[in-house]
Structure formats: C-alpha cells, structure tokens
C-alpha cells in the first residue's frame, strides 16, 4: 500500500471505517447478537486506531489543512468532496472515535433486542459525526449534519424510555427547524460565492470566507447559521429538547449526544458561522456571551432541583456548554483554546457521568435520586469512580475540567473585543460554585448517608466489563488534567489562526460594509471609522 496515499486520505479513512462497520451491522442477522456486538466494537476500535495514527501524523500546516483531499463531486454546482483536518477538528475527531468503542462496550448487556439495528445506528452516527467534522465543503457538511439526525432519531425512538416518541420528535423537529434556516443561508451564500478558478459558484469553505454580500445579509445569514448551531449546542433558551432527549435516550445515545453531538454546534460556529460572517459574528458576540452566561447559571440552578439523575446531568450540560460558548465569544486565543479543550473535557466527563447513570440504571431500573442513598457503602468501587467523575465535572484541578474552565474564564476576562467581558466572567464564575453545589448534593443524596432503601442492598458493584470501559475514561480525566500540553500544542496554532483571521477579516468587512452603505445610501448612526469598535 502506498503510505503517502494512506496518510493523505487518513481523514476520510477514519470517517469511512465506521460506515463500513455500519454496513456490516446490517448484514448480520438479528439473532447473532454477539457477532453484531463484537463487529461493532471491532470497527469502532479500528476507527480509533486510525484516528490515533492521524493524531500522531498531524503536523501544524500553517497555510492549509492537514490530510486535505478535494475531489469534484457535483461540478455543475461547484460542490466537491473536500475534507481535511486542523487543530480545531482534530481533537473532536479523537473524542468521537474514543467514545464510540466505549459506548459500544457499555451496551453489551443493556441492549438485548435489535442489536444489529442499534449497532448500525451507532456506527452510522459515528460516521456522520466524523464526516461533519472533516468536511470543508459546506454542502458536504450539511449532508452529514442532517444524516446524523436519522440514527439518533432511531436510537431514541426505538431504544428509548417510555416517553421516547415525544422526545425523539421534539429532538428531530427542534434541530431540523434550525438546520433548514441554515440551508437557506447556505444557498444564499452559495449564490454569492465565486471560485476564482472556475469563475462559478462554490460551496468550499475556502471560497465562502470571502463572501461579498450586504451588511444586512451578513447579519441574517449569521443568525440563520447561529440558530442551527445554537440549538445543537444547546444555548439558552433553545435547550429544552435536550433534557427530554437525554432522559428518553438509551445510555449509549446519551453519551454520544452529550459527548459529541452537542460539540458539533460549537464546531459549526468555529468552522462556518464565524469565519463566513466575521463582522456580523463580532457584532453578535456580546449577545452570544450574555446568553452563555445565562446558560451557565440557569443550567446550574435548574440542574440543582432535578429529581432524576439523568436530567440533572442533562441540565449540567447546558451549564457547561455555556462556559464553552463564553470562551468562544471572548475571541482570545486563550479563551477559544479553552473552549475547545473544555468541549473535549465535557465529552469525557459528561460521557462518563451518563455511563455511570447507565450502570446504576441497569441495576436499579430507576434514576430517581430519592430512590437511592448510602450506596457508597454497598458499592465502594463504583463510589470511587463516581467521585472521580464528579470532581472532573466540577473542574477540580488535576482533572481535565479545570484546565478548560480556567482557560475559558481567564481568556474571557482578558478579552479586549468582548464588551463587559469582566462582568460576564465574574457572573460566569458563580457557575464554579453552583457546579459544586448540584454535583456534590446529588452525590451525597445518591451515595452517602445511611442506606435508606432496603431494595438497594442487593445491588452489585461494577463488574469487569464496566471497569474495563470506565478505565480509559478515568485515565483520560487525569491525563488531560495533568498533561494538557500535547493536546493544546495541536490545537493552539489553529486557534491562533482562527482568532487572527476572524478579527482581521471582521475589520476588513466592516470597512467594506461602510463603503457599501455609502454607495447604497444607507445612513448609519456611526461614523464609518467607528465601525470597528
């Protein structure tokens, strides 16, 4: 095999291995549960190994993307199969491939019917997520982005809890509504794009970052993109689909949903919405930051009063993703790097929390906090694992969460472009306190105190399989907390480029907008030279 060809196409390979697995899953008869499981595990591990390879082979390509491949797909419309990876997508790809085998392993007992369908959905979902992460063509991205809904729809709708139909339809419509507006914006942007080589329109991100459209159109397009991504993140107040989806989804679905799917919203902002419409983005940053701060506090407060552990974790995601979006809105290298790092951390630690909820649900068949109490005495090993994950979630130093949260907050505080950055940071730092409140309170009610419910006395501690899939997660919590540099080194150059490009492009566009307004006789309240501020 030609090594260079292999390495050059590594991004595509990573994304298509799970697709191959998904096809295999369909070919396996429903009775052969074991074959389905192990084949899914094999393919997801293969994808992980490939992505490790990619991680090792990744170098900072300062001018272009790594593992970039561009093939004509629908030349008539300027659509191409254009993929590649940079520091921004690299870690998210790693997170996806890291979590999927764990999820597959975790469902060996929980899913006992339609195993092949379940595994198909998992692997197909993984392929779609990876596809959207490597896509550099907005059309290609959109295809993957929408395809993702189908396996998730099935995962919740077929394998979910009692109220799964409501939850899955809500999830679908919510995200789909946002996506459709984005599609309109994509079409608009496409019609105003030019590929300098062919002279025609193009959907490649390289050409879409140089759009020449009216200031109002920039605003509207940015809002359309933002809506789609904000729903996915989910930012307050577009978050209400999330608790429902989580509560109804099976454990594996929840892990992937919280672990990766939400991050695609953040990623969408970074890859498409902000670079395509930098001036509009910079204008809306204070709004995004304000909504994020509300999300941080609101999510934490509402999480605090939940009775269902899974719902609590779901609302905690709203709070954590608020931190992530705040760091992004700061548009400083530290803040954005922190936001990206925290996305990965959240995937690891909240993914782990959902796995833990799954472990306990498999045994007790309930997730009501009131049903538990004093489990630490009965399940000492589980208690220790749960505690580590809890501490990671509340961002205790030496765990991964601290690095991300710290960089986000300090990066936001020092932001020169974000209005009221200092007040917003101060408000967001109350989330640091509230996070400890809801997590420790929950931990206490479930694990500490006397055993209040005699039914729980029969519960078994974690078994070998469960230890096996929790072990890498626990390891990652500490590795990413103690040695973040190997990860940050891959991320930071790309973030640096992103921040510089967006801020400088925003200025250029502002100037262009001022000229445009002048030519078109639009009166602006501000003098043109004030437009940058």
């Amino acid at each position, binding site marked *: 095999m030609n090594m260079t060809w292999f390495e050059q196409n590594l991004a595509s390979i990573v994304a298509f291995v799970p697709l191959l697995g998904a096809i295999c899953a369909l070919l396996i008869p429903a009775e052969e549960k074991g074959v389905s499981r192990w084949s899914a595990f094999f393919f997801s591990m293969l994808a992980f190994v490939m992505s490790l390879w990619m991680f090792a082979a990744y170098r900072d390509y300062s001018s272009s993307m790594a593992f970039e491949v561009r093939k004509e797909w629908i030349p008539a419309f300027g659509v191409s199969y254009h993929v590649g990876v940079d520091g921004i997508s690299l870690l998210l790809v790693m997170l996806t491939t890291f979590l999927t085998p764990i999820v597959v392993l975790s469902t060996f007992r929980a899913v006992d019917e339609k195993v092949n369908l379940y595994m198909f959905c998992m692997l197909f979902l993984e392929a779609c997520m990876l596809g959207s992460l490597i896509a550099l063509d907005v059309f290609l991205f959109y295809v993957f982005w929408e395809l993702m809904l189908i396996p998730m729809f099935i995962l919740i709708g077929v394998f979910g809890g009692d109220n799964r139909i409501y939850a899955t339809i809500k999830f679908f419509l919510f995200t789909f509504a946002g996506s459709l507006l984005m599609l309109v914006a994509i079409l608009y942007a496409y019609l105003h794009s030019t590929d300098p080589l062919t002279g025609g329109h193009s959907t490649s991100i390289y050409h879409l970052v140089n759009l020449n459209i009216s200031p109002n159109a920039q605003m509207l397009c940015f809002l359309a993109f933002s809506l789609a991504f904000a729903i996915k993140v989910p930012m307050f107040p577009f978050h*209400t689909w999330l608790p429902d989806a989580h509560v109804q989804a099976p454990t594996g679905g929840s892990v992937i949903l919280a672990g990766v799917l939400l991050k695609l919203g953040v990623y969408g902002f970074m890859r498409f919405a902000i670079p395509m419409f930098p001036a509009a983005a910079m204008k809306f940053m204070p709004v995004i930051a304000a909504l994020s701060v509300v999300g941080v506090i609101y999510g934490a407060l509402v999480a605090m009063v939940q009775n269902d552990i899974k719902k609590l974790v779901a609302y905690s995601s709203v709070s954590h993703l608020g931190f992530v979006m705040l760091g992004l809105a700061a548009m400083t290298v530290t*803040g954005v790097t922190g936001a990206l790092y925290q996305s990965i951390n959240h995937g690891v630690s909240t993914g782990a929390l959902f796995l833990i909820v799954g472990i306990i649900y498999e045994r007790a068949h309930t997730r009501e906090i009131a049903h538990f109490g004093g489990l630490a005495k009965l399940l000492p090993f589980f208690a220790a694992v749960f505690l580590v994950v809890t501490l990671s979630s509340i961002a205790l130093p030496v765990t991964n969460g601290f690095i991300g949260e710290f960089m986000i907050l300090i990066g936001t*505080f020092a932001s020169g472009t974000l209005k009221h950055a200092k007040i917003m940071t101060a408000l967001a*730092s109350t989330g640091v*306190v509230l996070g400890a409140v809801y997590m420790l309170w929950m931990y206490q009610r479930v694990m*500490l105190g006397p055993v209040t419910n005699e039914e729980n006395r029969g519960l078994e501690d974690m078994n070998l399989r469960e230890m096996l899939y929790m072990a890498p997660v626990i390891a990652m919590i500490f590795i990413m907390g103690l040695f973040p540099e190997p990860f940050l080194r891959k991320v930071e150059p790309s973030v640096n480029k992103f921040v510089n490009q967006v801020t400088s492009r925003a200025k250029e566009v502002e100037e262009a907008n001022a000229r445009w307004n002048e030519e078109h006789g639009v009166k602006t309240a501000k003098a043109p030279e004030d437009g940058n501020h």
Partner: protein
Amino acid sequence: MQFTLQHLGGNEYSFNLLYLIPLFPLLGAAINGLLWPLLNRITLVFAERKLPRGLVHVTAVGAMAASAGAAIIAFLKLRGLPLSDSPVFVFHWWDWFQAGGLKVAVAFRYDQLTAVMCLIITCIGAMIHVYSIGYMSEEESYNRYFTYLNLFVFFMLILVMGDSLPLMFVGWEGVGLASYLLIGFWFEDSEKASAGKKAFIVNRVGDAGYLLGMFMLFVLFGTLNFSELADKAAASGFSPADHPWMLSAALICLFIGAAGKSAQIPLYVWLPDAMAGPTPVSALIHAATMVTAGVYMIARLNFVYALSPAAMTVVAGVGAATALFAATMGFYQNDIKKVLAYSTVSQLGFMFIAVGVGAWWVGIFHLMTHAFFKACLFLGAGSVIHGMHHEQDMRKMGGLKSYMPITYWTYFLATLAIAGIPPFSGFFSKDEILYKAWTGGNILNPAGKVIFFTGLLAALCTAFYMFRSVFMTFHGESRADEHTREQIHESPRTMTAVLAILAFLATSGGFLGLPHWIPGHPANVLEHWLEPVFAQSAGSLVFHEANGFLFAVISVAVALSGILLARYFYLTPAGQQKAEAWRQDFNSIYTLVQNKYYVDEFYDFAIVKTIHAFSVLLWRIADAFLIDTVAVNGLAQITYYAGYAFRALQTGNVQRYAVGMIAGLAVLAAVLAAKGG
C-alpha cells in the same frame, strides 16, 4: 543544585530533589489507596488471609517521615547558603499548560517562607499520623483514612511549594477535596456528609474569588508566576496609581479566597461544622495547616498587597472583626471541639490582622505558634474524647485531671500558650501582632487603633473561654455517669508522646521570635530568616516606634483577667451562682450567643432556601412553562392548528372545490359590480 537566575524575589538555584517532598505523601496515598487493597484482595482469594493492618500505618507514617526528611534536608541546604543573597530553590517539573499569553508550569519554589511552611506541615503532619494510629485503631476503613490524610499532605505541600498562583490553586482546591473527604469520613452519618459538602461549597465561594483575583492580576501583570509578579510589581513601569480600582479589587478578591479557606467572616461557617471529622483531622487540617493557607497566600503576595492600603485595611479589618466575633461565639459552646473550632477562627483572625497591617513575618510567626498549641489542644481534646468513649460534651466531663494526667498537663500548657501568658509561645506572637497593629502605618487611618482594641478584647475573650474549657473538662467534680467514669483511661503511648512533643513546642516555640524590648536584644530568629521573602515590600512599609514592654504588660494583664474571670465563673460557687443569675437576666443575649448569632440560620434562609426556591421557579415557570410549553410546544400547536384549518381547503372532494369556486366567482362578481356601479 545550581545557580540559574537572579530575580528581585531572590537568587534562584535549581534543586532537582524538591519534588520528593510532595511526592512521598502522594506515593503513600497511592499505596494505601490502591496497592494494598488490590493485594489484599489477591491474598484473600489465594491465601485466605488479610494483609496485616500495620502495613497501612507503616506506609503512611513512612511516607510522612520521608517527606519531612526531604523538607529538612532542603531546609538545611537553604540555610547553608548566605541569607543576604536571598537564595531560593526552584525546580521546574513540566510545562503544565499554555495558550495565548498564559503560561503555567508545574514548578516548585522553596524559599525561606516555604521552608517554614513545609517544616510545619511535614513535621506536625508526621506527628498527627502517628497519633492517628492509636486514635483510629478501631476504625474499619483504616486504609481509607490514611490515604486521605496522605493525600491532604500532598496537596498542602503543593499549595505552599507551587511557584505560581494557578499551581497554588491546585493545592488550594486539593486540600479542600481532602478536607471534604475527611470531614465526611464517616459518610454513613448524613450530618457528617453534609458538613463535608458544606465545607467544600463555602470554600468554593472563596475559590471563585481567588479565580477572579488571579484573572485581574493576570490582566495587570501579564503573569501569574510569583517571581515574575514580584519583578513586574517592582518594575518602574508599574505604578499602583494607574490601576487604583483593579489592583485593590484583585487583592480583595484573593482575600475572599483566603477568607473561605481560612474561615473568616463571612465564610467561616463551614469550620465549626467541619468538626464532624475525626479529631486528628481537625488538628491537622482545621487548625494547624490548611486553614492557615489564606495567611500564607497573603504573605506570599506581600509585594502586591503592600501596594494597596485599601486591600490591606480590608484584610486587617476582617481579621480583627473575625477574631472578636468568633471569640465571643466560643463563650457558650459545650462541645469541646466546637470551642476549639471557634478559637481557631478567632486565632486566624489574629493572623490576618498581622498580614493586614504589613507585619508579614508576625503573621507567619503566629501561624507557627498556633500550629503548635492548637494541634496540641485538638489532640488533647481527641485524647479526652477517646478516653471518654466518644463523649464531646464538656458538661458531662469535669475532674479528668486525675484520670488523664498527661492529657491534662499538655492541654493546660497549650492553653497557657493560646491565652498569651509569657513565656509560652502564643504570648510572643499575639503580643507582637497587637504591637504591630498599633504601630503600623500601612493601612487607612485610624483603622490600626480600632483593630488594636478589637484584638485586645478578643485576647481577653480567648483567655476566658479557653480556661473555661480547661476548668469544665479537667477540674472540679466529674459529671460523667457511673458507667463512663469507670472506663475513663489515659490514651496509649502513641498519642501521649505526640501530645508531649507538641506541648513542648507550644511552650518554647515563642523563642524563635523574641521581641525587641527584651533586655539585651536577643536575635529574632524567625524575622531574620524570613527577611529575604519580605524584602521587596519592606521598603514601602512604615512602623512607628513605641514602647514594646508597655504593650506586653497590657497583654499579660488582659490575659490574666480573662483567666481569673473564667476561674471565678466556673470554679467558685459564688461565681457559678452569679453566672446562673446573669443567664436568667440576659437570657436573650445568652440565647443569641449560644446559637452563634443565628448566622447559619440566616444563611440557610437568605441564601440556600432562596436560591433553591428560585431554582424551582426557574425550572417550573421559565423552563417547563414559558420556554417549553408556551414557546416550543406552542409553536408546534400553532403549526398543527394551522394545518388543521387549511385541511378544509384540500379535502379532495370535487363538490367542495366546485362550491368554493362558485362562491369565489360570486364574490368577485359582486366586487366588480360594486366597483362598476
């Protein structure tokens, strides 16, 4: 060890073995927490026997001894270098994280201040580990206890050795975690688990302040590394007048962090509850070491604090207020550990007075003497509790003097020290604090004088309530029931030996910081030793001259009157009757004080319940109703009804279409006719 860099903060020598000091306790924790349980499981399966319990404490104490040994070696090496050069040992382990302009390394700094802290932590820590062998001997989760205890020491060492604010924060939150785990050590008791949680959360409030303070310093100075901060703060380019608001705000935010960790107003509420933990834990964490972290932090940042008189006034003012407020709460506590807890809060207030008025070394001096006498007091209380079979109520004690002589005498000596009787250690440090408060000219006027009198009053209260605890516990008639009295015993040798050593330190520790007024001007060892650390701020601080001897006389007079008052009220029948009569007359005040001014109740109502109710409202009204029902499902409903309405237009029924067409034509014709007419 080789010379590397010259900073204003000192000449840096890299010393590669520094990491061993914190590493040993970490290893101890890992072995006790992971390796032994694993091996235990294996031997249970294959040899059908458990590992001996002794392995656990040999590991834990061994780790502590090794760590103390490393700290002592580093101290001796540091002492071998000329002090005038301000030598500092540094060790850069690895780059932790960096992004943008932010760079944080896992690197240690061992200067004169760190040396003092490390010696206190490792030596007292080792002693308390030894003491725990006896105290926790009947405990089921023996290895869990020692794992947490070693883990605590590890984080505490990171806290004092870290060379930057973020690394100090690692230790800062880490000790909070260890404290959480140890307070809630007996987690099957819901109250104890809650106490641990409360400690963690109240500390987190402080930590949020710490974070914000750190961010502001970063914006001001562009670094969070101590020696770089010192350089930047001293550089001619930096003038505090340029940042009047931000600098003070940063320092006050950091002080909020200190107030959380060191239990100052308004964040002291967790410490009395923290007494739920095992008593050796209270001695080590909640008296001798962890709670002094705030004082250490301010002393460490002395060069920045010296730039902001406003922030220093806040520090000293809060310290003084806490010293007095907590001392009055010690009056009517009947739980022996609670008395000591409030006393700790109060003594920490004294330390903040010291660092607040700019007398950095005095703050560290009191930190050290307090570590000696308070550890001794707590362990003495532990010995009493151990001997009384888990009785903590002083009303059920009395007359223990004859049953537990070693415990009594060590407790008594330590009480003399805390009360401020010369030549016991507490006298020297407390007297020096009050002296510096009076003579210091570094905070806003006339705060120093107010703080002096507040401190004096607090000292009076301290002598009173501490001797009250001695009299109630050890003197008079035994008030224990028959059954308990028969079983009272002196504690085992591992415990009493530690008590004796600590009592010796509490007695003699003051000689390390002899005051200036003593005839012949003996050397002040501690002040001299710490000089390089505080050299940068020394130039800008002012202390007036005053007659130190006079202050000492006042101090002693105050302490003696406190003791005599306690003796009168608790040992003489006349005094007891008088106290009872006053209690009747001033019942409301008595109740107020005994209930700790209802601060906990106020917090519970004003903060905990309010936030909880507000959150429920948010969830039910904002989330479930406004967003979900009205906006989201409402939109879906509108769509649904719109579809329902429009469905009538597309029934597929040709007759209906025909009716529609004819009706439309009719309307059209009518409109045209009307127009035409």
